[in-house]
């Protein structure tokens, strides 16, 4: 009986699974493979080489991409740091407040940005910035990134918090710790895996963001995703594939790290 209900035994399950996997990953794999293409064409295979990677780092367009990458990384570091700090404080407050009226509303408010279509957030943010008279540029990108990174940083921290009862803080207070010592010596170390995981996630979300950045960046400044988009509009060259592959690699590493750190914290109880 149980066997019959097992989803793996539904007819057609396997082909559909393979189709989905193919649609998801085939384009990525093709881009990765063709980034090692020696030819000038993006569709004709001309033997393997690292030519386009060299082009990325030392070619004619390298200066533009390096500037964009530097912007991306500095913004991602600052946005992730700020967002993680805010998320940590929010999670601590939620833990210490215990059960209060409106707790689930607060939780939903923190996480709502995850559900709002990104284009809506982008337009709204742009309107907001022009309404208050901000000139678009590096700073507007940074502010926007901090804001949309908060829920991504908050989720792993909140998940980690599930295992931390507020009784730990009470024990610390009972043992003559000040509130700050209780936070620094007990809560913070217990939350650390969640915080690191949240930071990594926020970092990569910021690094990869295109839509919001494109709206609020203004002229004359590029991040890596907007620079790639700009280059693609003038025709796809194989060096774009090399950059994309590099960006994909960074993403995969960070997301994996984020997951591993978060899980390590869960097991170590």
């Amino acid at each position, binding site marked *: 009986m149980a066997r019959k209900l097992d989803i793996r035994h539904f007819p057609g399950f396997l082909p559909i699974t393979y189709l989905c996997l193919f649609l998801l990953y085939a384009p990525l794999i093709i881009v990765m493979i063709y980034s090692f293409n020696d030819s000038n064409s993006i569709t004709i295979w001309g033997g393997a080489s690292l030519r386009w990677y060299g082009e990325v780092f030392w070619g004619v367009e390298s200066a533009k991409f390096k500037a964009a990458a530097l912007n991306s990384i500095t913004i991602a570091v600052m946005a992730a740091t700020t967002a993680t700090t805010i998320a940590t404080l929010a999670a601590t407050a939620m833990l210490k407040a215990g059960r209060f009226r409106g707790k689930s509303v607060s939780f939903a408010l923190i996480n709502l940005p995850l559900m709002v279509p990104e284009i809506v957030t982008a337009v709204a943010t742009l309107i907001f910035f022009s309404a208050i008279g901000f000139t678009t540029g590096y700073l507007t990108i940074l502010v926007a990134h901090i804001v949309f990174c908060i829920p991504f940083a908050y989720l792993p921290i909140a998940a980690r918090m599930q295992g931390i009862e507020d009784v730990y803080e009470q*024990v610390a207070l009972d043992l*003559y*710790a000040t509130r700050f010592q209780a936070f620094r010596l007990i809560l913070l170390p217990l939350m650390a895996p969640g915080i690191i995981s949240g930071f990594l996630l926020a970092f990569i979300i910021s690094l990869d963001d295109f839509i919001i950045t494109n709206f609020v960046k203004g002229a004359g400044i590029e991040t890596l995703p907007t620079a790639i988009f700009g280059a693609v509009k003038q025709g796809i060259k194989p060096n774009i594939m090399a950059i994309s592959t590099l960006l994909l690699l960074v993403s995969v590493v960070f997301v994996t790290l984020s997951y591993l750190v978060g899980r390590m914290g869960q097991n170590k109880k």
Partner: protein
Amino acid sequence: MSEIAVDILNMTKRYGSFVALRDVCLSIKDNEFFTLLGPSGCGKTTLLRTIAGFEAISEGAIKLYGEDIADLPPNKRPVNTVFQQYALFPHMNVRANVIFGLQRLGQDETTARARVDEVLDMVQLMEFADRLPAQLSGGQQQRVALARALAPKPKVLLLDEPLSALDLKLRQSVRQELQQIQQTTGITFVFVTHDQEEALTMSDRIAVIADGQVQQVGSARDIYEAPQNRFVADFIGETNLIDVAVSSVSGGYATCVLPGGDVQFTCPAAAGAVVGHGHLSVRPERVSLVKPQDGLLRGVTTRQVYLGTDMSVDVRLEGGKIITLRLQNSEETHIPEIGDPVGLNFETGTARLLED
């Protein structure tokens, strides 16, 4: 007259409109093993938390060795708690857990280390000093929690059902250990439990609590043998509560009329007993079987249950009231068959008239 360690004066604790503790008055003496006993939800933890400083009191006062502590935060009160869930810091080993309080008090490293060794020795955990809490059994974790709370030499140690997570065998040996530690350290213990056996065997004095109110305070013997009201009589051990008409009360004694007859019976009375209607409490082991015509009460055997060393027998009185008695299981004891008419007897001193 020994000194009062914790003095709770007309203390009331409300959560919104809900009254968790009502007009509590307790004087816990220095160097006493004091137990708060009561059913789940009666307010034991709440009372302990008001002493520790985690709950602000709504009315009344709390004094610690004469000093009013109602406004002191928990980290300023020389009181430590063994929490019900132990709550050992999971990222610190045993030693770091135990030294935590000493470091916060600003003790120098050498003194603190020596004290940690001392308490770990006291709870026999020396060999586990470098382990993380997750690497310890439940009983060992419980002892770490105890050591951690004892290390700063608190004036009063609060223990919230510290044994409830342990299995029966372990619980019994830890009881003795706890008592011994209390005696050797001379620290006042306030111990919370809902287990009456635990309370009776360990405590110098017990406060029985129900519905946020102190029902009675006294030694184990006081509470078992001279319960103040129906709740205490019923909650501590088993008892038979018999409805009686009270004809006179004076000098701690009452005269009442037993049901099913006009037998006048005089027995000790609780402070609140009044003329009119009352409840007579008689413990099952104090009731003896006699011939029907010799008994204070008469009835028919309706049930007998084998309990190992004892036998429990139910007798239905003429009015329908069931009286339970406890007989020793020995060769000499005559156990009546079901349906046998029997008489029941008890000594004047063993029955007690309770407040209505």
